[in-house]
C-alpha cells in the first residue's frame, strides 16, 4: 500500500490500514517532523533576539512566515522552486505545507460535522451538486472521527446547522465571548460552545489541554490534534509503516488494465526519480496536489490523466468565503486582567442561524462566525495601531494599556457555490525544480459569494454596535480585496477530484475509490462535492477512515 501525503487524510489512512495489519509506505514531500525543535509553543517573544520579526526583520517586509515566526507552519503560499501560475483575470493563492503532518500541525482545529442538508444542497436550492452519500450514512463515521480526534463541544437539539456529536467538555466562555453571546441573543443569532479538536480530558496517551493558548505553534503534548502526533507516530511504532520523507510524487503508474501499480516520485535529497510499487495507491496530497498528480499521469489508457475519464479532475475548485471585521469594546476597558489564552481559539462560535430563511436573503447557503479577542500574547505588530494613534511619547503607553484586550474580531467562513470558472489545470509551459509540470489556477467569486460577504459585514457590525462597541478595522488582506477574501487564503480548497454517483461527472465513488481504478483512492479535500461552511478537516478524517476500512475489506475479498 502506498499513501501519498501525511495530513488529515493520509494520517488517518495509514493509522486505520496498519490497524488492519496492512503494510504501508507513506510519502511526504517535506521533511520529518521534529516536535521538540519545531513547536515553539512555550516561547515568549523575548526568547529570540528578533522577537518574532525574523532575521533581518523579514516580517516587516512581508517576507516572514505565514502566521508569524512562532507558528509551526512549514510551507506557505509561495514555495521556493515550486511555483504555480494563475490565469489572466484570476486570483488564487495556493497554500502548501511541506512537513510530516502537513497543515494539521498548526490548523485552527475547528471541527464541524456537516449538517444533513449539506449533503443534498442541489435538492434543496437547485444550485451545485448533491453528494452521493447522506448524513445518516456518514453520521457513524463522524462519531468515530470525533471520538478519536477528540472534539470539544455541546449538543443542541434545535440546531440543524450544528448536529449533535460526540463531544468532550468545552472550556467556559471568556468575558468578551459572553458579551458577544448576549448581543447574539438579542439578534437571534446562536452562539454556542466551539467545536475544536482539543482534548480536555486524558485520551489514548494524550494529556488534557493545559490552556497555554498557543495551538498554532504546534502542541507539544498533542492535546490539540495533529495527524503527525496522533495518527502517524503511533502507526510507525506498529512496525507496519515506513515513512519516506522529501518524496515529491509526480505520477501514478498503471498497468494498462485498469489498475494502479504504484507511484513515481522525485527523492528531493538526491534529485533522482524513484518508483514504489504497491497493491493499491491512496492519494492524500491535498486537493490540488492530488489533482495535479492525476492530471500529470497520462497514458494511452487514460489520455486525460488517471481516473479522469469524466474530465472533472481539477474542476469545481472551491475555497470558503472569508470576511473579517474587528471592533473596540469600551465595556472591557479597565477590567482586571485575567488569563484569556484558554484552549487556544475561541470557546464559543456562531453556527449558521438562517437555514430556513433563504426566502428573505439575497444569497444561497450560509456561513458560521469565528470569534477573536482577549489579552493575547504581545507580539510583533500588536500595538502598532495604538502607537499610530498616539503619535509618540507617553500617549503610546497610555493608549496601549487602555486598549489592550478591548478588541474583538469576527471572521465569517461561508459556503461558495461551485462554478465553471474556478478550476486548476496543468500548465504545460512551466515545470517546478523537480521537473514536474505545475498547476495553473482560475478562480471567480460570483454574486452569491459577494452578497454573502456583505451579509457578514452587516451582521458583524451589528454585533459590535449591540455590545456598545465601534468598528475599528478590516484585516489588510480583506481590505485589499475590497471586502471578500482572496481565493485560496482561507486554505479550505476542496473539490478538484470530486465523488459522485455517475462516473460521467465524477472521479470517485462514495468510498473515495476511483470509478475507473478499483485500487486507487483519493482521501484529501479533493473528494468534496460542495464546500459547506464547515471547516473541512473533520470531514476528511471521517471519509478517510471509511475509505481505509473499505479498502481493507476490498483487499480481504480479493477485489483489490
Amino acid at each position, binding site marked *: 500500500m502506498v499513501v501519498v501525503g501525511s495530513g488529515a487524510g493520509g494520517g488517518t489512512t495509514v493509522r486505520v490500514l496498519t490497524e488492519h495489519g496492512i503494510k504501508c509506505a507513506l510519502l511526504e514531500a517535506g521533511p520529518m517532523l521534529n516536535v521538540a525543535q519545531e513547536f515553539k509553543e512555550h516561547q515568549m517573544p523575548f526568547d529570540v533576539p528578533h*522577537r518574532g520579526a525574523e532575521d533581518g526583520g523579514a516580517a516587516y*517586509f512581508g517576507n516572514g512566515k505565514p502566521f508569524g515566526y512562532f507558528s509551526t507552519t512549514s510551507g506557505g503560499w509561495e514555495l521556493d522552486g515550486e511555483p504555480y501560475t494563475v490565469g489572466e483575470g484570476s486570483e488564487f493563492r495556493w497554500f502548501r505545507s511541506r512537513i510530516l503532518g502537513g497543515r494539521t500541525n498548526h490548523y485552527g482545529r475547528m471541527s464541524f460535522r456537516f449538517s444533513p442538508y449539506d449533503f443534498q444542497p442541489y435538492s434543496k436550492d437547485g444550485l451545485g451538486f448533491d453528494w452521493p452519500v447522506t448524513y445518516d450514512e456518514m453520521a457513524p463515521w463522524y462519531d468515530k472521527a470525533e471520538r478519536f480526534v477528540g472534539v470539544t463541544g455541546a449538543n443542541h437539539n434545535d440546531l440543524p446547522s450544528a448536529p449533535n456529536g460526540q463531544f468532550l467538555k468545552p472550556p467556559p466562555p471568556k468575558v468578551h465571548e459572553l458579551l458577544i453571546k448576549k448581543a447574539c441573543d438579542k439578534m437571534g443569532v446562536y452562539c454556542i460552545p466551539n467545536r475544536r479538536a482539543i482534548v480536555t480530558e486524558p485520551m489514548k496517551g494524550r494529556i488534557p489541554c493545559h490552556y*497555554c493558548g498557543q495551538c498554532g505553534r504546534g502542541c507539544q*503534548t498533542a492535546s490539540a490534534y495533529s495527524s503527525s502526533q496522533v495518527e502517524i507516530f503511533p502507526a510507525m511504532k506498529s512496525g507496519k509503516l515506513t515513512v519516506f520523507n522529501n518524496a515529491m510524487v509526480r505520477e501514478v503508474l498503471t498497468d494498462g488494465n485498469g489498475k494502479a501499480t504504484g507511484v513515481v516520485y522525485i527523492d528531493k535529497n538526491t534529485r533522482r526519480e524513484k518508483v514504489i510499487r504497491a497493491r493499491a495507491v491512496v492519494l492524500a496530497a491535498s486537493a490540488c496536489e492530488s489533482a495535479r498528480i492525476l492530471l500529470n499521469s497520462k497514458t494511452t489508457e487514460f489520455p486525460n490523466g488517471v481516473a479522469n475519464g469524466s474530465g472533472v479532475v481539477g474542476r469545481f475548485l472551491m475555497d470558503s468565503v472569508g470576511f473579517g471585521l474587528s471592533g473596540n469594546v469600551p465595556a472591557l476597558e479597565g477590567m482586571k486582567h485575567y488569563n*484569556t489564552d484558554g484552549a487556544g481559539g475561541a470557546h464559543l462560535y456562531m453556527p449558521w442561524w438562517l437555514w430556513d430563511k433563504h426566502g428573505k436573503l439575497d444569497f444561497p447557503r450560509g456561513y458560521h462566525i469565528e470569534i477573536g479577542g482577549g*489579552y493575547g*500574547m504581545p*507580539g510583533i505588530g500588536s500595538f502598532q495601531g495604538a502607537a499610530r494613534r498616539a503619535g509618540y511619547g507617553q500617549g503610546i*503607553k497610555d493608549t496601549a494599556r487602555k486598549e489592550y484586550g478591548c478588541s474583538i474580531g469576527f471572521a465569517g467562513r461561508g459556503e461558495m457555490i461551485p462554478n465553471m470558472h474556478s478550476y486548476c489545470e496543468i500548465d504545460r509551459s512551466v515545470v517546478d525544480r523537480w521537473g514536474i509540470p505545475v498547476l495553473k489556477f482560475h478562480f471567480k467569486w460570483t454574486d452569491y459569494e459577494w452578497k454573502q460577504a456583505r451579509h457578514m459585514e452587516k451582521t458583524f457590525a451589528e454585533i459590535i454596535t449591540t455590545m456598545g462597541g465601534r468598528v475599528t478595522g478590516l484585516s489588510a488582506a480583506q481590505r485589499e480585496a475590497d471586502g471578500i477574501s482572496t481565493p485560496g487564503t482561507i486554505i479550505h480548497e476542496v473539490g478538484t477530484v470530486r465523488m459522485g454517483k455517475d462516473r460521467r461527472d465524477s472521479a470517485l465513488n462514495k468510498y473515495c475509490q476511483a470509478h475507473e481504478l478499483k485500487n486507487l483512492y483519493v482521501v484529501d479535500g479533493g473528494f468534496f462535492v460542495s464546500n459547506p461552511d464547515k471547516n473541512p478537516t473533520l470531514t476528511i478524517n471521517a471519509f478517510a477512515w471509511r475509505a481505509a476500512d473499505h479498502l481493507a475489506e476490498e483487499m480481504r475479498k480479493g477485489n483489490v
Partner: protein
Amino acid sequence: MSKSITTRRDALRRIALALTAAGSAMELNAQEAQHVHSAAAADTKGGKYQPKVFNEHEWATVTRLSELIVPADARSGSAVDAGAPQFIDVLCSQNAALTAIFTGGISWLDAEMRRRAGKEFVTSTAVEQTAMLDAIVAAERTVREQNAEELLFARAPQYKGFSSYTVKPGTDLAPGVRFFDWARRLIVDAYFTSPIGIKDVNYVGNQALSKYEVPQEAIDYAFNRSPFRIV
C-alpha cells in the same frame, strides 16, 4: 546556552518521553508543563552591548529616539530599558535595506534639525527634538486623514472613527514621516515584546493550567459597563 534553556530542553524531553511511553503519559502534570513555561521565561542578561551596524552617533540617535517614542514613567521603563536599540541594530546587521532606512533616516533627521535648530538631532534640546517629532506626526496625521477618506467603507456610519491607514506622504517632511514610521514601528515592537513591556500591559497568559476558569468578578465588571447591564 544558559542553564534555563538546558532545563527547558530537559522538561521538553520529559514531555516527549511521557508521550511515547504508553501509560506513563498521565504522570506528566500541570506543574511539569509549568516548569517548561517558567524556564522559557527566564531571560539571559549579557554585558554592555557593542553595536554591529551603527556608529556611535547613529547609536546615540537611535537611543534618544527610543526614549522619546516610548519614555519611562512611574509604572515601567523606556524602550531603551527594553532593548530597542539592540533590537534595531541586530535586525539591521542582517538586512542592508533596513540599515539604509535607518542610516539614511538619521542623516535626513540631522539635516532637517540643522536647518531648524542649527544642531543635529541628538545635540538639540529636548524642546527642539519634540518640536521636530510633533511636526512629523502632524504631517503623518494629515496624510492619514486624506487616505481614510479615500476608503469607501470608511464612509458608512458603522465605520465612524475608523483608524487604519497607509502612509503615502506628499509633503517636504515625507522622508521624515517614512523614517519615523519605521523607527516607531521597531521601537514600539521592541518595547512591547520585552519582559518590561509584557509586564507593563500585564499579559498573564502562556501558563500551564490544570483547569481553565474565567473570574466572575471580570464578567460582572464588563456586563455592568455594557448595554446589557443588569439594573
